[in-house]
């Protein structure tokens, strides 16, 4: 797979694996719903680390904001104080996430559990996340002001992926470290269904189906009630009234 195909196809493959994998995990979990609560507790224990998740949340939110509002980011960065503030904050949060990720891996390696396969994929996922974080920090060091040039290059790349017209040149012209950062991010997305974290996604899917079921039931009940009071049959067969 050439560099171009990699950036054109890998993101879609990763998202497809995430969606299909999560649905499969959901179908499997629905066979034994009683185990889900225990699996969630297990996942929480395996991936606990408030500071790590908080820093990950801030980083993801920042990246999403950069993709959604690149012009706003560039406008913010046009002020030197704004630029230093944003980059400084992002760098500090990135370092926190690296430390948190390293501590999570350390704890994970010393942990014994029931499933070796899940353990293996948890390790793979954590290693990928560590790679993403370290590459992100190194990008900040070696390729200054990623929030500015990222808004001009990587944000349109992600937007082009969403619009199914991948502008791969935006990613392929980047330095290897940036390419690694991007590809590893999609790799992490692809691995999620194989890890314990997928139980959270299963819970979300389950919640959605329950909510949908409730909504449909409520709509059905409302429709029945309405037909009982309005008797639409009389519109077609008035003589029966």
């Amino acid at each position, binding site marked *: 797979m050439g560099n171009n195909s990699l950036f054109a196809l890998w993101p879609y493959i990763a998202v497809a694996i995430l969606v299909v994998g999560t649905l499969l995990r959901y179908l499997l979990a629905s066979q034994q719903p009683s185990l889900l609560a225990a699996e969630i507790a297990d996942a929480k224990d395996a991936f606990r680390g408030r500071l790590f998740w908080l820093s990950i949340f801030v980083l993801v939110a920042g990246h999403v904001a950069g993709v959604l509002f690149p012009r706003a980011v560039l*406008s913010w960065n046009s002020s030197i104080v704004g630029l230093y503030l944003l980059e400084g904050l992002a760098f500090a949060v990135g370092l926190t996430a690296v430390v948190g990720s390293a501590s999570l891996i350390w704890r994970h390696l010393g942990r014994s559990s029931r499933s070796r396969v899940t353990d293996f994929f948890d390790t793979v996922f954590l290693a990928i996340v560590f790679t993403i974080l370290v590459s992100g920090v190194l990008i900040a060091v070696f390729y200054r002001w990623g929030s500015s040039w990222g808004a001009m*290059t990587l944000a349109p790349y992600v937007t082009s992926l969403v619009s199914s017209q991948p502008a791969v040149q935006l990613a392929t012209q980047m330095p290897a470290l940036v390419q690694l950062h991007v590809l590893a991010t999609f790799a992490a997305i692809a691995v999620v269904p194989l890890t314990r974290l997928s139980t959270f996604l299963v819970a979300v899917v389950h*919640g959605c189906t329950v909510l949908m079921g409730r909504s449909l039931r409520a709509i059905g009940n409302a429709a029945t009630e309405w037909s009982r009071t309005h008797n639409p049959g009389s519109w077609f067969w008035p003589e029966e009234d």
Partner: protein
Amino acid sequence: MRRSFAVGTGVRAGLCALSLLLVLTGPSRGVRAGDSDDDDMGLGAKFSLEAAATFNGRCTACHTYGNGIKVGPDLKGATERRKRDWLLKFIHASSGVIKSGDPTATALFAQFKQQRMPDWVDLSDKQINDILDYIAIGGPDIKPADERNAATATSAETDAGRKLFYGEIQTRYGAQACVNCHSVRGTGLRGGSLGPDLTGIYLRYQDLALTQFLRRTCISWKIETPPERYLTAKESFALKAFLRASAMPTRQSSDAAGNLPPHKEAGSYGK
């Protein structure tokens, strides 16, 4: 189980953070340069780019500009030799003008071996007038503003280049400031390091090569925008002038950018 379905406080916090970001950043407040219509060719010459393209596409097959007769007459000075009304009529429908017995048209018809010029009926009066304006002000002899040697830049032009480099004024087509990816001497930490340091780039590439370089996008800054809509010729020239000034060993001021005498004509940029 149910607890995990509830919308977490984290999600709410995320939405708040995003809203805050939007409120804080707001719309861009940069000053837009080049809102005037003289963006592309500079040197005081204003003409429609479409007219130049039409001239190149339709006229140059049979006419030269200043290089003598080809199939038809040399068009240099045509607007001085003939009246505008006559030219309009002739370009629209030369056959009709010749048939009408117009002495100038019949003389030309005879002189040029009875080669009949196509009737450009699809061109509007405005389009033809634009082409005639283009011919009148120099036609293909007009050089784009960015081809001027950077040594001739005024201090205002060099300063405009500095502002464009730092993003203090926006480019006409929305190309992002060079400083996001590049540094030059004096930018300090403000300059990005994704792209190379541009301090010595003028000396390395010299004027002509740098002109060519600045005509291309160095990065696909906006997917839907064609590459030719990147920098206007004036912006390109201003940046070149700034890069020249940056390349000189001592930078006292923008017009003392080197050992070449600065031009002191009243140059203004943008507005």
